[in-house]
């Protein structure tokens, strides 16, 4: 079975017998340290597979006698960060809400923490950029218009108890009548009120309808929205004279809002989030540009 061995003429080294386009491969020996390195790698691999999780079994891999676990590493890391933040979190809960802004360290911690919590819990409705969604009536948190109050205490209360939910008795609550669907106003009357709202919010309006609209407004709407339409934060009644419309300020949108009485619901975040987390989100939201 011995194959004929060819020898390269110039170097007098045997060839492997493989030839590619006339180029032959010399059968030079490997350096021995290379072999030893290979053996060392095998020994290392054996040792490693005993020391660390390696061999897959039915339910989990062999644990390895060093007890190393990347899951445990993550848990440890989280515990370490929690421990490191425990003091500042305690301080965040202790101090008065209005005093946080005066403490740069606390403010920075709360803002960063709040941003992360916002992205996890609030962004689903209010959007990642906190700009809300007008079509669905999720409020924009970047502007300076607040339904239930925009100072730090009001924001904190809203986040803690939520709005119009069933699970927290302290949740902000109000309900606008559905003037159209419950037949409280006729279509023409609703159209007149809509034109009045266009007028007081500084938009184009139908002059023929506004006087009737003003009378209907005083009769039906002013009790919550105020005589001048400036709203009432205790009731979550929007200011109807500014440039900001929860569901949009076109005639069509205003008409729809009066007809169907649209309003939103927000869950209570206590006790889902801890007090320090709620305070952090409140600080974050307050610092988005519209905080009062």
């Amino acid at each position, binding site marked *: 079975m011995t194959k004929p061995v060819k*020898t390269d003429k110039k170097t007098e080294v045997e060839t492997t017998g493989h030839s590619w386009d006339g180029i032959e491969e010399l059968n*030079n*020996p*490997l*350096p021995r*340290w290379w072999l030893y390195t290979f053996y060392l790698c095998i020994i290392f691999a054996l040792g490693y597979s005993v020391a660390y999780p390696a061999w897959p079994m039915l339910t989990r891999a062999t644990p390895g006698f060093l007890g190393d676990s990347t899951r445990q590493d993550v848990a440890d890391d989280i515990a370490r960060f929690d421990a490191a933040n425990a003091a500042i979190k305690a301080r965040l809960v202790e101090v008065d809400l209005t005093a946080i802004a005066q403490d740069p360290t606390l*403010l920075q911690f709360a803002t960063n923490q709040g941003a992360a919590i916002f992205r996890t819990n609030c962004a689903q409705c209010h959007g990642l950029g906190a700009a809300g969604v007008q079509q669905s009536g999720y409020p924009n948190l*970047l*502007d300076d218009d607040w339904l239930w109050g925009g100072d730090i205490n009001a924001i904190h209360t809203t986040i803690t108890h939520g709005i119009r939910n069933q699970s927290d008795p302290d949740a902000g609550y109000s309900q606008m009548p559905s003037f159209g669907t419950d037949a409280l106003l006729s279509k023409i009357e609703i159209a007149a009120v809509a034109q009045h709202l266009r007028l007081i919010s500084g938009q184009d309006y139908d002059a023929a309808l506004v006087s009737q609209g003003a009378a209907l407004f005083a009769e039906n709407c002013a009790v919550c929205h105020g005589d001048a339409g400036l709203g009432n934060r205790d009731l979550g009644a929007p200011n109807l004279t500014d440039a900001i419309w929860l569901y949009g300020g076109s005639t069509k949108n205003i008409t729809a809002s009066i007809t169907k009485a649209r309003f939103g619901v927000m869950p209570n975040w206590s006790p889902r989030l801890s007090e320090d987390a709620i305070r952090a989100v409140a600080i974050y939201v307050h610092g988005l*540009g519209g905080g009062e």
Partner: protein
Amino acid sequence: MTDTTPPSLYKAREPIFPRRVKGRFRTLKWWLMGLTLGIYYITPWLRWDRGPHLPDQAVLIDLAGRRFFFFMIEIWPHEFYFVAGLLIMAGLGLFLFTSALGRVWCGYACPQTVWTDLFILVERWIEGDRNARLRLFHQKLNREKLAKRLVKWAVWLLIGLLTGGAWVFYFADAPLLLDNLIYWQAPMVAYTTITVLTLTTFFFGGFFREQICIYACPWPRIQSAMLDEDSLTVGYRFWRGEPRGHKQKEPEIPTQSTQGDCIDCRACVNVCPMGIDIREGQQLACITCALCIDACDDVMDKVGQPRGLIGYMSLTDEAAEIAGAKTKPIWAHIFRVRTLIYTVLWAGVGVFLITALFLRSDIDISLSPLRNPTYVTLKDGTIRNIYDLRLRNKLGDNMTYQITVTGAQAFTLALEGQASDFVKVNADETFSQRIYIDAPAESEAARDERSDLRLWVTALSDGTRQSHDTVFNGKDD
């Protein structure tokens, strides 16, 4: 071949015992070794005053603080292109030197060569020159051999320790770190790095030596593609030396001696740290350290022949010399179109980097507009754009800056959480601030899709200012 036993698949390293040599190139290499090792060991200890807020180490790679200090230059992470530029210059520089002078890097400046040279020097001091070392190698292990080996390894380990130790000083304040290292208070990573570098220096310089160049290093392979027929490499003038052999005392017909100049004394082989025979021609293992030139010149002087049987030459010289033509002068090998192009490219990158260095401002502004949403409508119809402003204070002093905005439109500016438009940025720090730029309701900027605006950052202390252009998004209705 009738031998039926297959050849061994593995080959043990053939030990090399380079002999001591004296000469021009050896002297040059001693100086270069002193210079390169000196630069390596001393650099971290040089001081450079940068003011009270910045480190005073001349060369410091501050990984934790993400800064690189090099004398008067400080590089921030976003200026990493300087490092890229330096690497490009290093690459082009190697191309240049290789095309002109062959493997001059390998032979003179490569750390593997320099440290191996140093280790061989130590070996020679402790165990003697080539013949003594050969004898010791073949000798059975006795007290003398053990003692010499242990002393040698101890010195190697010490050099390795100093080498690894010097490395970590580039990454932290050297005197403080040395103090911490001695009192066992330095970070674990420092000890780990020193251990790893000590051991690699010990093994690479003491035992692997030429095998690193032959088996591990990609550079010889790359270099062979950059050498050309004009590159200067170490070569043997076989047309002058062959046929080699011992000189006859009195040739029968002196003028028609059939002997070449090579007396086959193997001096060139014995001094070679790579263990090769240069007379076999250019080969992969040759690092062009030029020690064989010194060895051969010495022998040629002794036998009364002209020097240069082994010397620096190129392939074109070889062809010309064999043909009896005149060879090119050395400058013609070095100044060629190819090397000039490399020089121009290399210098071009260098000029670009120096220009960029001087054009850097001490205040660095980056302004990222928030795109989600592009604008916010306020109660009174004002259109607001939100930006995240980042200021980098590259000076050694704490600075106060005033932030203002200009543009064709009447913009107003407000800083989140700040009553004024002044911000304080500490020395060598980055400061982030959310800013609001408002355009009044029904103004052109509020209505248009986009308007240009310019943000100014003015240093309160001396009035130097820096601007940044951006756009304002309006309602576009």
